[in-house]
């Protein structure tokens, strides 16, 4: 996959070229491309003067970073304790069967990615499903179809 490298350059221009900028830079790259392309990691290592192994270590440590491309819509189903009790599994099954993929996978047309997360910190609204940056509370199985369409 080819990427708009000028976009990368403008991300690097925003921060001081030192190791302290690493996470901020990776966050911006993740936001821009929905994942961290290999070339971007190599470039970050070179420009910020951080060993590639450390860049890789950081990018695999945080759940917010992904090394594989994600769909336009990333559906995060909370399966934390509260959401689990209130039926997160049913929601997961419904999403999985409608989109014909499993959690952690992306549809072929790159439109959807399903992920499961453990507690997004909104237990009072359980079960919670986040679609990109939008959080939906008290989600019912019957609402799943609409969430995919919207």
């Amino acid at each position: 996959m080819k990427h708009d490298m000028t976009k990368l350059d403008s991300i690097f221009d925003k921060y001081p070229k030192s190791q302290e900028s690493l996470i901020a830079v990776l966050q911006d790259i993740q936001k821009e491309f929905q994942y961290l392309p290999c070339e971007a990691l190599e470039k970050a290592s070179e420009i910020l003067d951080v060993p590639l192994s450390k860049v890789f270590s950081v990018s695999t440590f945080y759940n917010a970073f992904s090394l594989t491309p994600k769909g336009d819509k990333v559906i995060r189903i909370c399966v934390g304790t509260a959401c689990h009790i209130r039926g997160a599994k049913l929601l997961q099954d419904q999403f999985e069967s409608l989109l014909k993929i499993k959690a952690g996978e992306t549809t072929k047309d790159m439109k959807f990615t399903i992920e499961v997360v453990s507690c997004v910190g909104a237990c009072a609204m359980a079960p919670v499903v986040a679609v990109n940056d939008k959080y939906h509370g008290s989600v019912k199985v019957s609402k799943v179809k609409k969430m995919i369409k919207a």
Partner: protein
Amino acid sequence: MIHITINGKVVECKDGEMLLSVIRRERIDVPTLCHHEAVEPSGACRLCTVEVTKPEWDGWCDYVTSCLYPAKDGLIVNTHAPKVNELRKSILDMYLARHPKSLKIKQLAADYGVLATSLETVVDGNNCILCTICTRICDHMGFSAISTVGRGHGKEVAPPLDMAPADCVGCLACAKNCPTDYIEYETGNGRLKIWNKEFEMVACTVCGKTTVTKEFAEHLSQQRDIPFEYFEKCDECHRKELSATMGKIANWEREVRS
């Protein structure tokens, strides 16, 4: 200098010196898996745990990793208190469950009377205990070719992007210092393979035995000012050469004196 008490004996040490270093100096046997003199302590294995207290703590004790605990004047340390032994046992019990194939772990556990784990064994468990000696040493050597990848259950030591690491020179510091011999490498035919990267070895110009990888020799000659030719002779031939020189000097001295 300050004074602390270890197992009833008053010993002198530097203020702030890590307890483990004092314990080792006193030749007291405390098991460790993640400690290496050459690198910063990390407190990963928890086996060096000891009991510490002070008279003014009113009988209250703390259990700390001695590799990371700085000595303070008046500290009373017990390296083998009953509770410490219990703690080590339960740690070894967990290691045994997770790394059932490791001989080193088996041996250590047996030393503490743990012959079989009381927990469920991880069937496909490998021998990496994530002590990170390898990554710390690799950083220390200045290569940083490998690091920990992922976290939690899936955490492992690996090169970046799961490819042969560009920064690795094949120095073997990681493999040679791995406490459980987890890191594998192959040698033969004048080559070395580690982390899926292949290296050509330098051969001794006298006897043909291989010494170090070309990359490592180049690195050392450029960064540490050791002439590259030094690596073109193996340890044994270096020694032979040295003893020949010594012989010549001895002969010469004899001649001068006579």
